[in-house]
């Protein structure tokens, strides 16, 4: 488990520093901010031995705002952009109430699930609205890898996040263990795909032309 955490932190740090080299686009700028905040939050959570979930409760709306903007930033559809803003407002309100209702040592299971669900939807929207760039294949488009990372991560963690609080009352140790394993594994996968997406800007014609 310790090794997985080390890989996870190393990849998160790598992605953050790599993103600093490609700050020309709004997507990378937002991603860079997200990775920086993630790094701080995860470091604070690690110091607290992952007992105080207030960090996550505060981080969740910030994460959702940044991720939804990253995913929909390049979309030209005004309806989608308006919907994103609407969900950001609603989700922030929901998070605020959730913090007031829940205990700080309780994992924000419901809002995380809502976030996962909404992000998965934006990922799908983003996938189907990626504008073609000349003869460039989709796998050579950085936005594809970034979206794929968020898509797999959210889809993979949505189930365990949703049932975590219920599960923990019956089998605390197992639930905590499985939750950590799944979260860390999918985070590693997310940061690998984000790294491909960030470094992929080096070969992205559109980015080079900027």
């Amino acid at each position, binding site marked *: 488990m310790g090794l997985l955490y080390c890989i996870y932190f190393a990849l998160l740090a790598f992605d953050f520093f790599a993103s600093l080299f490609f700050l020309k686009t709004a997507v990378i700028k937002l991603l860079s901010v997200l990775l920086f905040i993630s790094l701080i939050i995860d470091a604070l959570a690690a110091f607290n031995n992952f007992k105080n979930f207030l960090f996550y409760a505060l981080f969740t709306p910030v994460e959702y705002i940044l991720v939804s903007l990253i995913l929909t930033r390049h979309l030209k559809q005004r309806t989608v952009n308006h919907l994103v803003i609407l969900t950001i407002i609603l989700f922030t309100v929901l998070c605020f109430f959730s913090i007031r209702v829940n205990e700080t040592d309780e994992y924000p299971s419901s809002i995380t699930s809502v976030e996962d669900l909404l992000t998965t939807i934006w990922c799908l929207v983003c996938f189907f609205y*990626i504008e073609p760039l000349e003869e460039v294949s989709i796998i050579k488009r950085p936005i594809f890898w970034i979206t794929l990372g968020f898509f797999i991560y959210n889809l*993979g963690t949505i*189930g365990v996040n949703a049932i975590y609080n219920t599960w923990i009352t019956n089998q605390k140790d197992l639930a905590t263990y499985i939750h950590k394993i799944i979260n860390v594994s999918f985070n590693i996968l997310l940061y690998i795909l984000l790294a491909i997406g960030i470094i992929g800007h080096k070969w992205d014609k559109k980015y080079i032309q900027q």
Partner: protein
Amino acid sequence: MGQEIYTAIISVSILLLILALIIPLIIINYKKKQEIYLLERRKMQEEFEKQLMQSQLEVQEYSFHQISEELHDNVGQLLSTTKMLLGITERNLGETPDSLRTASETLGKAIQDLRSLSKSLSNEWLHQFNIIENLQGELDRLKAAKQIEVSLKANVHVLPLEPQEQVMLFRVMQEALQNSIKHARASEIQVSIEVRGDIIYLCLSDNGLGFNMDEAGKNGVGMMNMKHRVKLLNGSIEWTSSEASGTKVEINLPVQKPVV
């Protein structure tokens, strides 16, 4: 513990299944959009080239028209006046010297040639332009001036093309004729025009020196113009050239169908 493993396996399987379904869909969707995008871009490029060529042709036709007017109104008038003065001189002299008669005849021929040249450059006759008639006139002029054996065979009297398109095609054939005379130094030129079902076929062959296709293709502005013009008519043009058998230019065009 067994139940959790099952749960984990099922979760991962569902995730993989979703990914297996969604990722090909995303790729197919992107490819479709890319095809549409590339097709639209190609169409726009072609449209742009057409517009560019069209404006170039308009400028060229305008220049030809100006030259034609200049030849007819200025040079033609000067030559006519000269011929008239020669005629007066002939009459005043009583007995006309041979050299003066020859000069008068040569001048008469020059006026005739100038008129036909002026006519071939002018675009006033655009609306009733007939490529076959004009090509025959052009060949007759060449035959008279350059002592070249030329022949024209056509299985129709009028080509099923708009007059403007016939002018464009005429310019292509003029260019091909010029190439045969100037560069290939041909002594025999054969031109044939045929309508074969839905295809208009034009062929110009000569017994000239031939040329290197690769070099001519790279540097020849004339050949490039010919290609562009034929492309504007939605046709194709091909050159076959060898030192032994001269050069053959073949043009295939679709017959214009009336819009219902």
